[in-house]
């Protein structure tokens, strides 16, 4: 286990370095810079600004300066939010995004997995079809439309839940549902097929012949074995949650990290973009490592390559 973790860290470091480098240069390729504004500033002022942020140096020099800082754990400064460091900005936004993401993942599991089990046990019937359609509804509409619909129905029409903002636990419900819509469908589909698969196994049949109640069989044997593919999928799911977070955070006015992908890129806030990307990449890698460890615990027979 510890070997696995050490190995992961060893792979992670060059990967993060590659990501930082790639993003650094890709961003500089973009036309436009952080100091272009609707009201064009005089060249003298631009010169002052560039000097202040070391942007008058050559690109390799800037890259060197950046790397030096990152190694020390300093992700740089924001050009848009003056006088604020990227560490500072991300430190206040990350917990919010994590809360939202975990809430959504939780929702996806408690809705998607039961739907999948029911569909599998009633395979081929109308109930199966209903379950699959229900879970697919969530991935059949763009998330901004789902968000708008949820706000309209629950926030404005029924007045059951807060429309937006980030104040209490109630405020988490609608955004978490919006964010969970995609992963739920994914999980339901996966659970269904792995439970069907497991149910057709000999030992499940044996258990049934022995007179074990059907539901107990499903839970004790089929679901347990079906857990492995479900857990595998948690890694890619976190990626979906991350991509979805921008839309959801914007619609529900949530002060999370997702929105920096768009706003910071369009502001050409270089360091903030790289910082956000690095943190998200780190989260993904951690999620995948946890998945691998769970995998290992659930089924020690599986040896983990890389």
């Amino acid at each position, binding site marked *: 286990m510890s070997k696995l973790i050490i190995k992961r860290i060893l792979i992670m470091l060059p990967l993060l370095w590659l990501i930082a480098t*790639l993003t650094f240069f890709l961003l500089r390729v*973009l036309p436009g810079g952080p100091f272009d504004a609707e009201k064009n500033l005089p060249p003298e002022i631009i010169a002052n600004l560039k000097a202040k942020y070391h942007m008058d140096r050559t690109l390799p020099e800037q890259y060197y300066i950046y790397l030096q800082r990152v190694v020390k754990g300093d992700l740089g400064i924001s050009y848009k939010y003056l006088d604020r460091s990227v560490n500072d900005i991300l430190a206040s936004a990350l917990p919010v995004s994590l809360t939202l993401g975990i809430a959504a993942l939780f929702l996806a599991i408690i809705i998607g997995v039961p739907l999948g089990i029911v569909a599998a046990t009633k395979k081929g019937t109308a109930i199966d079809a209903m379950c699959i359609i229900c879970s697919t509804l969530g991935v059949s509409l763009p998330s901004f439309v789902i968000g708008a619909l949820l706000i309209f129905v629950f926030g404005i029409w029924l007045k059951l839940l807060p429309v937006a903002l980030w104040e209490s636990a109630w405020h988490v419900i609608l955004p978490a549902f919006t964010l969970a819509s995609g992963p739920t469908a994914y999980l339901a*589909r996966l659970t269904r097929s792995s439970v069907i698969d497991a149910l057709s196994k000999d030992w499940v049949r044996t258990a049934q012949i022995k007179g074990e109640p059907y539901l107990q069989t499903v839970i004790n044997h089929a679901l347990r074995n079906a857990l492995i593919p479900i857990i595998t999928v948690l890694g890619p799911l976190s990626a979906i949650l*991350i991509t979805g977070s921008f839309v959801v955070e914007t619609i529900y006015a949530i002060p999370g990290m997702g929105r920096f992908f768009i706003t910071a890129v369009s502001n050409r806030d270089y360091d903030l973009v790289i910082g956000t990307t690095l943190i998200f990449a780190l989260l993904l890698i951690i999620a995948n490592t946890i998945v691998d460890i769970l995998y290992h615990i659930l089924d020690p027979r599986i040896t983990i390559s890389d």
Partner: protein
Amino acid sequence: MMKNRTYLAKIAGCIIFILCLIAILSSFGFPFTPYAFDQTSEHILEAPSAQHLFGTDELGRDLLTRIIYGSQLSISIGFLTALIASIVGITYGAIAGFAGDRIDTFMMRGIDLFYALPDLLIMILVGIIIGRGTLGILLALGLVSWMGTARLVRAQFLTLKNEEFIEAARACGASSWTIITRHLLPNALSPVIVSLTFIIPSAILAESTLSFIGLGLSPPACSWGTLASEGWRALRTEPHLILWPSLFIFMVVLSFNLLGDTLADTMDPKTRV
């Protein structure tokens, strides 16, 4: 036993077929509505009526016409993204899987890199650099959707490679190229086809998200995604602006998903998801 599912899949297949037909016919200039060649009128933001079945938009354009034209772009973006993803994915996966060892490990690290970079960032960067034409969007969507296919193909290759019939082919003196194209690929294709049916709908959805962000197609070109993102704020005052485009997105995405599910069920039970 599978009756219900196949029934659903048949309906889904019909819907997809009809929508594709509409898209193709309209691109050859088939006039579905009297407004096919007259996009502007003085009737701004009218609710659906006998004259304008789906209502009109802010510039007085017939929404039904716009949706029919939108189908061309939306559907072709879906298919082309899947095409790009499969070409890149199959090639990449085949090379990695066939070569194995060091090359394989190295290439898998490349995929890891792409997985670790958030999709959204890749799409934004490509969108900004290439610009907002169809090409930019295709590239952006293609770049984030090939990795799954590549992994699938590689996994298939790794297992198939050691099967007896490959050994046999090799013993007969077949070249690597022949082995890959004649023996390995055909046997690895079925999961790829299944995965394609999921790439298409997610590409259509991703395109609408791009429009929402502001990196979608540049007007006056329109797709269902741009129509939905232009209309969603008017949910309460002009619901038809958001209703119709979302309905079409909904139909096509749902159909593809159902079709894909059934394909996965029937084609090969080993290769689900």
